[in-house]
């Protein structure tokens, strides 16, 4: 799993990619938490991710909790049907905003009070 970052309108976007199953190689949570010192509006793009597991889910939910405490927010975009299903099973879809495209996520975070 590899993570690249870019910025749009002050929003930090993490493009995550990789099809391997060893999710412990890259600590998504640590990478995002470090970057979050600069901004509290974050998008995680899972377009090029085929598999996730409870470790990744734990990282995403920890980041969400941290950002909420800082009055920021997180949007996860481009979830495959499989990953959407996993989000629903662990009830993550109830607390984390997901969108099918980047522009929608950017608009939401730009208008965040």
């Amino acid at each position, binding site marked *: 799993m590899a993570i690249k970052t870019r910025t749009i309108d002050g929003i930090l976007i993490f493009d995550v990619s990789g*099809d*391997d*199953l*060893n*999710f*412990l*190689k890259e600590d998504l949570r640590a990478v995002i938490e470090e970057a979050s010192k600069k901004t509290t509006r974050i998008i995680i793009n899972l*377009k*090029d991710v*085929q*598999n996730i*597991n*409870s*470790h990744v*889910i*734990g990282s995403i*939910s*920890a980041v*969400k*909790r941290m950002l909420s405490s800082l009055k920021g927010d997180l949007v996860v975009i481009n979830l*495959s*049907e*499989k990953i959407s299903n*996993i989000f629903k*099973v*662990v*009830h*993550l879809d*109830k*607390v984390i905003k997901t969108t*099918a*495209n980047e522009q929608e996520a950017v608009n939401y975070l730009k208008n965040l009070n």
Partner: protein
Amino acid sequence: MSDIISLGDSSRGKIKGNILLIDDDESILKLLSKILIYEGHEVTTVMSGSEAIELFRDKQFNLVITDMYMPELDGLDVIRNLKDINLNTPIIVLTAAGSVGNVVQSLKLGAFNYMTKPFNVADVCEIVQKALGAYASINSKKNFFSFLKLSRNVFRITSDVSHLDEVSYFLNHWLGFSAFKSTWQIQLAFTEAFTNAVVHGNKSDPNKFVEVEINFSGEEVVIIIKDEGEGFKVPDLKSYTLGDDIYASSGRGIFLMNSYMDSLSFNEKGNQITMTKKRD
């Protein structure tokens, strides 16, 4: 049409199939349809990846041909989603000449082959025949499971999560071969259990082993994973929930395994998990 492809005109010896074509360019759809229908295939066309995924869920196809570059869902997205629904259906990717990077990626995701545009009729027919032949071969092997009572496979693996991809490849191969439909759910449960055994059970100690047993029969797959750790307090799985704290730092792994497998149990010590998934 039957979900099993048939041998066509014996004089020509060609295999005929039920083919799904995906391209946002109507002229390509028309041209390819014309070629394939002339060759005796049944053809369904759609102009978007999302439409294709919806259709693929409800209808059996022997082959999918998808364009690589489409708005919203591209060819790689289509492959990822279709492979989650049915591993066995071959997928051919249409791409512009010179797009090597995406071709490599599509093959890694499980595409059968690719065709570059502009294509010629002979190449199309040859690649389609090879793909339909591969599909027919897998289908013929499904019969093997009607008399298979048990295939028992045991691995003793060092405590390293980097072995996960290799063991999972074997698991997927058998699941595809045996035509299990819920492959990704089984793979996810396996990934959770194996990672737990290595990281929490054996604490990644290179001197400790994880024993993985994967048993296939015609009816089900049983996965047993045992580590050499001290075990843990086994939760009551019948009433196991994630609790009120959605942000809880642990518990999701067991919850996922319990949700996606038909049965889940631990030994008394808590260092061995047994998971079963019945054929869909």
